[in-house]
C-alpha cells in the first residue's frame, strides 16, 4: 500500500495549489462573515437584547445566591438608573479582633455598564458560529453553546460579586497586601478582561464540529497524516 500510494501523494501535494487557495478562501470568508455577524449581533445586543438579558441575568443570579445561602430574597435590587445594589453574605470568622464586631453581609452597588459585560459573551459567540456559515453543525452548536455560556456567565457574575464583597471586607479589616489581594486582583482581571472575550471562542470551537475541523484538522493535512503514518511504520 505504502509503496504504490506514497509517490502519488507526494506529487499531488507538491503540484496542486488548489487546496491551499481553497483553504485561505474559506478562512477569508470566515473572517469576513464573522466580522459582519459580530457587528450585526453587537448592534442587536446593544439596542434590543440588553434589557431582557439583564433581567434574565438578575433572576438567575438571585436564584444562584439563594442556593449559596443569602438570607434575603432581594439580594439584588435594580435601581431606576439601572445600577444593581447587591447584598452578599461574607464569612468574617477569620478576623478575630477583640472588641470588633463580625460582619455577616456587605451591601454595595455595581454600575449598569459593569453588569452588561456579563451578557456580552452570548452575541459574540453567536457571531463566531454564524460566521462559519449554516450547516448541520450550526444549530446544535448554537443551542449547547448558548446554554453553556449562559450558565458560565451567571457563575462568573457570582464569583465577581463574592470577590467584590470580600474586597470591601478587606478594606474594613486592613491587613498587609498578600496572597489574598493578589488572587482577588488576578481573578477580577480574568473575569472582567479575559474570560468574557475568550469563552465564546473556546465554546464556538468546542461545540461546532465544523469550526473544530477548520481550526485544528485542516482537511488536506488530515489526509496527509493518514497516509504518512502507515508509510512511517
Amino acid at each position, binding site marked *: 500500500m505504502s509503496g504504490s500510494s506514497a509517490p502519488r501523494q507526494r506529487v499531488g501535494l507538491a503540484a496542486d495549489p488548489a487546496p491551499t487557495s481553497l483553504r485561505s478562501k474559506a478562512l477569508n470568508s470566515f473572517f469576513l462573515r464573522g466580522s459582519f455577524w459580530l457587528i450585526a449581533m453587537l448592534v442587536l445586543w446593544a439596542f434590543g437584547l440588553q434589557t431582557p438579558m439583564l433581567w434574565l441575568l438578575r433572576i438567575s443570579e438571585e436564584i444562584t445566591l439563594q442556593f449559596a445561602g443569602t438570607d434575603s430574597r432581594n439580594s439584588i435590587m435594580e435601581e431606576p438608573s439601572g445600577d444593581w445594589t447587591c447584598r452578599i453574605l461574607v464569612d468574617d470568622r477569620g478576623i478575630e479582633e477583640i472588641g470588633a464586631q463580625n460582619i455577616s453581609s456587605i451591601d454595595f452597588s455595581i454600575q449598569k455598564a459593569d453588569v452588561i459585560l456579563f451578557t456580552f459573551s452570548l452575541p459574540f459567540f453567536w457571531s463566531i458560529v454564524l460566521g462559519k456559515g449554516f450547516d448541520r453543525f450550526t444549530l446544535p452548536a448554537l443551542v449547547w453553546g448558548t446554554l453553556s455560556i449562559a450558565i458560565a456567565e451567571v457563575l462568573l457574575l457570582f464569583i465577581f460579586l463574592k470577590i467584590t464583597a470580600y474586597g470591601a471586607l478587606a478594606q474594613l479589616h486592613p491587613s498587609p497586601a498578600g496572597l489574598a489581594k493578589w488572587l482577588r486582583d488576578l481573578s477580577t482581571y480574568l473575569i472582567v478582561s479575559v474570560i468574557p472575550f475568550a469563552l465564546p471562542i473556546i465554546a464556538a470551537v468546542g461545540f461546532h464540529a465544523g469550526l473544530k475541523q477548520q481550526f485544528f484538522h485542516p482537511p488536506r493535512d488530515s489526509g*496527509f497524516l493518514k497516509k504518512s503514518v502507515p508509510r512511517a511504520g
Partner: protein
Amino acid sequence: MKKTKLSKRRSPDARCYSGVLTKPRIFLAVFTGCCLAGFALLFSPAVEIAVLKLSHGLVDVSGYLISLCGGHAMTEGSVLRSPSNGFAIEMKNGCNGINVTVLLCSAILAFPASWLQKAQGLLIGVLAIQTINVVRFISLFYIGQYNQTCFDFAHNYLWESLIMLDALIIFRLWVSMVSRQRAGAYVRQ
C-alpha cells in the same frame, strides 16, 4: 516489542508532522495551564513594570504614526492627548492587548509543533496583535474626540472582540503554516 518501540518513536513525530491536533484534551490542559501561568505572571511586580513600559512604547508609536500621517497628538507616558481639544486617552493594562497576546501565545505553545515553529508563531503573533492594537488605539483616539458613547462601545466591546477574532485567525494561519512546512518536509523526503 518492536511495535512498541516504533509507536513510541513515531508518536511525537506524527503529532508534530502535519500540525494536526490529535490530542485535544492535552491541548486544552496545556493551553489552560499556560494561560493561568501567563496571567499570574502579569501580576508579578517585575512583569508589571515591563508591561507598563510596553504600554508607554505603544503610545509613543501611536503618537509617531499620527504625526507621520499629518495628525496632531502629544504623548505623556501612557497618555495620548489631542492638543486641539484636550481629549486624552490612557493605555491601561487590558487596553494594551496583553490579554489577547497571552491567550494567543498559550494556544501556540499548546499546539503540537516544533520549538522553532512555535518561536516563529510567538514572534509573528505578538507583532501582529500589537500592530492591530496600535490601530485600535489610534482609532479610539479619534472616535473619543467624535462621540463618547461610540467610544465606550468600541472600546469595551467592538474592538476587544475584533482583536480576539483576529487572534483566532492568526492562530489558524500559523497552524496552516506548520502544516505546510511539514508537508513540504515530507515531500522533500
